[in-house]
């Protein structure tokens, strides 16, 4: 099977610090791939390279087997890669609809859209409501409510819905449960499974081992700027994964990358 998203030999240096040292990465269709690694292992840099926020010094990124070059997150988005940032990247004072369509607004057809540049609010609200419902998210009372009036879990829900609605190839989620309580984390994990059920592959970056082991199909362990190995959660325990991640245990020979 061909990977949807693949990276080969990515290198990124910041001055004398090597953040990525010939890192590889593969994401297969329909899977949830968790990326774990200790602080400073370079997983953020890897993810940023995949989502267009960082330009690698060397190496290739392939989407559906074809090489791609992302100069900005806008490029990656245009190629079908949506990212849910840890900060969520939402404008708190604007409405749910405004946020979901930020940077890809829909204009009215005809004169009012082409010449007066008027937005088609009704259509955007409809789509936003559909997308939120589709993910079983929420009994929405007011789709035009400002995002800052939502709770942390609700905001995360909207961010995931935005990514799932517009991501055609890959959804990347950076620490989606880090800022959430127990119940809200649970809801977001369900959301992640829902997105997977719709056929979209997901890259999940998380420090939370129980969450990773619950939802991931495969776990990519990043260490010292490159991939140490990829394991199946069913074959290893959480403590093994942590041991490999921190260097306390060598990666199993058969799986070493």
């Amino acid at each position: 099977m061909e990977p949807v998203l693949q990276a080969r030999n990515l290198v990124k240096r910041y001055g004398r610090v090597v953040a990525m040292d010939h890192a590889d990465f593969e994401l297969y269709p329909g899977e949830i791939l968790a990326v774990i690694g200790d602080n400073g292992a370079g997983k953020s840099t890897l993810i940023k390279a995949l989502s267009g926020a960082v330009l690698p010094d060397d190496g290739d990124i392939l989407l559906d087997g074809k090489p791609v070059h992302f100069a900005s997150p806008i490029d990656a988005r245009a190629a079908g890669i949506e990212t849910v940032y840890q900060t969520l990247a939402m404008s708190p004072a604007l409405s749910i609809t405004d946020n979901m369509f930020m940077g890809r607004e829909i204009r009215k057809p005809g004169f009012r859209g082409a010449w007066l540049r008027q937005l088609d609010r009704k259509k955007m609200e409809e789509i936003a409501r559909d997308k939120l419902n589709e993910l079983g998210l929420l009994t929405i009372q007011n789709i035009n409510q400002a995002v800052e009036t939502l709770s942390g879990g609700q905001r995360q829900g909207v961010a995931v819905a935005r990514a799932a609605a517009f991501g055609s190839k890959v959804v990347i989620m950076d620490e989606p449960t880090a800022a959430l309580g127990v119940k809200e984390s649970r809801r977001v994990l369900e959301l992640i499974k829902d997105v997977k059920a719709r056929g979209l592959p997901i890259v999940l970056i998380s420090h939370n081992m129980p969450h990773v082991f619950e939802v991931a199909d495969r776990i990519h362990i990043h260490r010292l700027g490159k991939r140490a190995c990829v394991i199946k959660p069913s074959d290893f325990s959480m403590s093994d994964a942590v041991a490999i991640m921190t260097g306390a245990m060598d990666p199993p020979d058969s799986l070493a990358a």
Partner: protein
Amino acid sequence: MTSDTKTAGGQADYESAAATAPKAVASFDDHRHGIGHKIQHSLHQTPSLVPLIVLVLSLAIFGILLGSKLFSPFAMTLILQQVQIVGIVAAAQSLVILTAGIDLSVGAIMVLSSVVMGQFTFRYGLPVEIAIVCGLICGTICGYINGFLVAIVKLPPFIVTLGMWQIVLATNFLYSANETIRSQEISELAPLLQFFGNKVNIGGAIFTYGVIFMVLLILVLAYALRQTAWGRHVYAIGDDPEAAQLSGVQVKKVQISVYMLSGLICAFAGWAMIGRIGSVSPTTGQLANIESITAVVIGGISLFGGRGSILGTLFGALIVGVFTLSLRLLGADAQWTYLLIGILIIGAVAIDQWIRKVSV
């Protein structure tokens, strides 16, 4: 939530305690029903409501004190004429403040543009239409310099426009040689410069073209801010520029466009000022930056960006106009006006802070 049962097996043990709790984490219910919250919420959604209420209240109070002296078509439209210049400049200021910037150079750009219009006509003998276009371009270029320094060089807007204020003002004095073009000359040779001074009389109510322009400008900008993607991006940038960038807004482009538009509007204000005072004078409009910021703040636009409506700015400018004229009609010392405006500014910011807490 129907998905609870089938996924229960996947939950970690420590979560089972939470599983029995109500699961309504992600519903959008509004559980706050106190009257204070309701007011706070409606103000949050319609930020121009506060200045509108203040405007109506101040009209009512001064109306009781002054009676028909204030409530005559003449007095009402006089207020409009007195606020037109500040109103136009404040519209430009609103755009910049909505992006969490500030433009201290608005007054200077306005004066320089009007001087360019006048001097190009009288010193170089250019056709007046071309001189006016040159003045408008001059304002836009000043705005572009501001925008470039803020968006590309990443300098703080306060510093950039503080510097530009001095630079543009000095350029204005150096270029004009401190020379005023008299009103008579203009009305004889280039009446188009006084275009915005033309009047329409509707039953004692006198509307100058400048007043009409101010109202139309605010309406057009209100439309652009609410109904177009550009307007939504202006708000998003004021709210959180990094988030806007990550969600696909071309932050630099929008910022530069905002400062350019601000410069262009200031140039129009300069043209309107020739209509208002008749002459082209390099020494007028020195207070326009402070007055425009006052109108914006009283109008409920947050100085931290991303919140407020440009209609509020119009109300803010009108509030200042009502106070100024009413207190003068009452024969009060002009300092009372400043004192009351000062209280309004602080009150407006206090209300802004309170509205922001709606989410907490």
